[in-house]
């Protein structure tokens, strides 16, 4: 019943029109790459030592040694503030949140073994503040230990899961592939199905031998082609620009096929139930936006509060991104298989519902 020749020719015809539409092409292919470049640049590069203002009210030698030790950690870069300044005003005037004050007679008290405090100014909202506190604390401990002539007993060396060292970009690429799997097919099909209905193009197609299943299949195939192209482009840019560690495996193929199929059908469904292109676009946004941000696209869902994490588990895109992460980052194929089964079932349900509700002609 299904005529493959018609499907292939419709893919060609539709694809040619798609490629002539520069805006669609930009959002389908170029935009995800730009996102990779922007987010990769923001998070992947090392930001260098944190700038910290320091006011040394001490006149002895020990405070100088202390400051040298701080700088030697490499995590902070000290900027001296004159002892006569009001330190907290100075910080405000310079829009700075991190600062250290070494009190008067610091050296004398240290040598004498009298307790003496170092004040650290922090802003709990800044991640840099925690690093500054930790660094100062570490140096204080070393000085305390040295005072009593001790040496460290417990040492620490850092390592991560697997032999590989993961970078943010490694998680960002599967997330943004998920993003492009979602956005392009979903928004395009919402628009196409509601616009074609309004402009009576479906009615017109119903006067030709192409069936609605053939037409829908052709759109799904086109968005799979587009998704694969976008995937290759994103992976290439991720590796070339940021040296991302990504394993490519045949396990990716079902995700790259089911993903566009799922969201193209979902877009079709939204466009079919909505009466006008305007409502279709609103419903499309309501369905798409939570997935765009909460399914692990731009950041891992593990950083979200628990209730949002549970919410993420009802979003279809979560399972695609989770599966892509499992394959591309962890090479965890059992985990990927579970995601694949979930995605497969969701795709089946949405595709069949869309194909059923979608009508060429009216009663």
């Amino acid at each position, binding site marked *: 019943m299904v005529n493959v*020749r*018609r499907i292939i*020719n*419709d893919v060609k*015809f539709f694809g*040619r*029109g*798609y490629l*002539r*539409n520069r805006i669609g092409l930009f959002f389908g292919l170029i935009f995800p790459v730009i996102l990779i470049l922007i987010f990769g640049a923001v998070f992947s590069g090392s930001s260098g030592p944190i700038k910290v203002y320091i006011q040394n009210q001490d006149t002895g030698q020990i405070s100088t040694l202390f400051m040298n030790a701080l700088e030697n950690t490499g995590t902070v870069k000290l900027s001296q503030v004159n002892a006569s300044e009001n330190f907290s005003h100075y910080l405000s005037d310079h829009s700075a949140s991190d600062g250290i004050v070494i009190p008067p007679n610091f050296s004398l008290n240290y040598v004498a073994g009298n307790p003496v405090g170092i004040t650290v100014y922090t802003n709990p909202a800044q991640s840099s503040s925690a690093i500054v506190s930790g660094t100062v604390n570490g140096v204080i401990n070393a000085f305390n230990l040295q005072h009593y002539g001790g040496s460290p007993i417990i040492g620490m060396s850092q390592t991560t899961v697997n032999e590989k060292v993961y970078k943010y970009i490694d998680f960002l690429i599967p997330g943004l592939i998920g993003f492009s799997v979602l956005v392009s097919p979903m928004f395009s099909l919402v628009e196409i199905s509601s616009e074609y209905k309004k*402009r*009576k*193009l479906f*009615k*017109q197609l*119903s*006067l*030709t*031998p*192409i069936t609605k299943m053939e037409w829908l299949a052709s759109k799904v195939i086109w968005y799979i082609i587009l998704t694969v192209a976008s995937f290759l482009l994103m992976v290439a840019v991720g590796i070339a620009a940021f040296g991302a560690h990504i394993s490519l495996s045949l396990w990716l193929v079902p995700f790259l096929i089911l993903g566009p199929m799922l969201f193209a059908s979902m877009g079709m469904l939204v466009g079919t139930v909505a009466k006008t292109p305007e409502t279709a676009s609103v419903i499309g946004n309501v369905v798409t936006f939570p997935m765009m941000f909460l399914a692990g696209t731009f950041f891992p869902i593990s950083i979200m509060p628990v209730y949002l994490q549970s919410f993420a588990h009802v979003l279809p895109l979560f399972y695609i991104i989770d599966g892509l992460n499992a394959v591309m980052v962890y090479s965890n194929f059992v985990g990927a298989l579970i995601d694949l089964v979930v995605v497969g079932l969701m795709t089946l349900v949405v595709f069949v519902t869309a194909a059923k509700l979608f009508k060429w*002609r*009216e*009663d």
Partner: protein
Amino acid sequence: MLPVEVTLLKKSYGALKAVDGVSFSVESGEVFALLGPNGAGKTTTIEILEGLRKKDEGTVSVLGLDPWKNGYELHKKIGVIPQEFTFFEKATPKEAVEYYAMLFGVSVDSNKIMKEVILEDSANVLFEDLSGGQKQKVGLALSFVNSPELLFLDEPTTGLDPSARRTIWEVIKLLKSMGKTIILTTHYLDEAEHLADRVAIMNKGHIVAMGTPDEIIAEHGSGERLEIHGSKKLSDYITAKTKLKVNFESKGLISISIGKKHDAFVALEAIEKSGLEWGELHTRHDSLDDIFVKLVRGKIDAHGEISAKNNAANAPTNRGDKTHG
């Protein structure tokens, strides 16, 4: 078997009876026009014939098929331009024709088709950049890609400028000369008169007149009339002195019904005797336009809406001073 046979067709949308018991048939090779104002039921009728809408009641046979049940089979044999034809914005006319040929599984000479619809100069322009008339020509080209024996053209020239309309007419006449049976809907009288062998005038879901333009005029017209430019006084004089049916219309036009040829002499004799001034004189028949105004009770404007006017023409003429003369 005739290409199209419709008996007592009915279709309602809620309380609105869009088509209310319409019957007609169309012969092979004929151009048949459904003429009427917007909302008369033309498009509903034609869409039921095309298999795009489901009828409520009545029987419909198109090329021997039930259009709704056998739509898929029927669509291979017919050509259609839907009302307000549009196409995919990013395709050219030539690509459109080749796409349709592929869907129908036929091979066509797309350049030849572009020539036939007088579109060869814009064959490679994107649809979105075409003018209204050119877009409509793409619709015409697509309607016969599959070499159909029967064509449905739903308001093929609505909204086009006069010269674009004339080129579309040329293409439709070419299709007729190729022996195709054509059903078209229009709210332009001149279009129906110019193109159609037979016309069915539709109003409020009914066919109110049907036949060749001459047949319709003979059946619904008021026969031959003598028209003279003259005063109300002259009109009253003729009314008083003869047994003729006289109508004084607006702008000083006196209209006298002429049943027998002799009536004309009677009228002229009365005019001569009156000694009153009179001007231009001619005889005329009802045109399709006159019948149309009479049947749908209003004139139709360029957008297909009825504008009820000219009621002054029906004002009684026998009033007033009869002592004159």
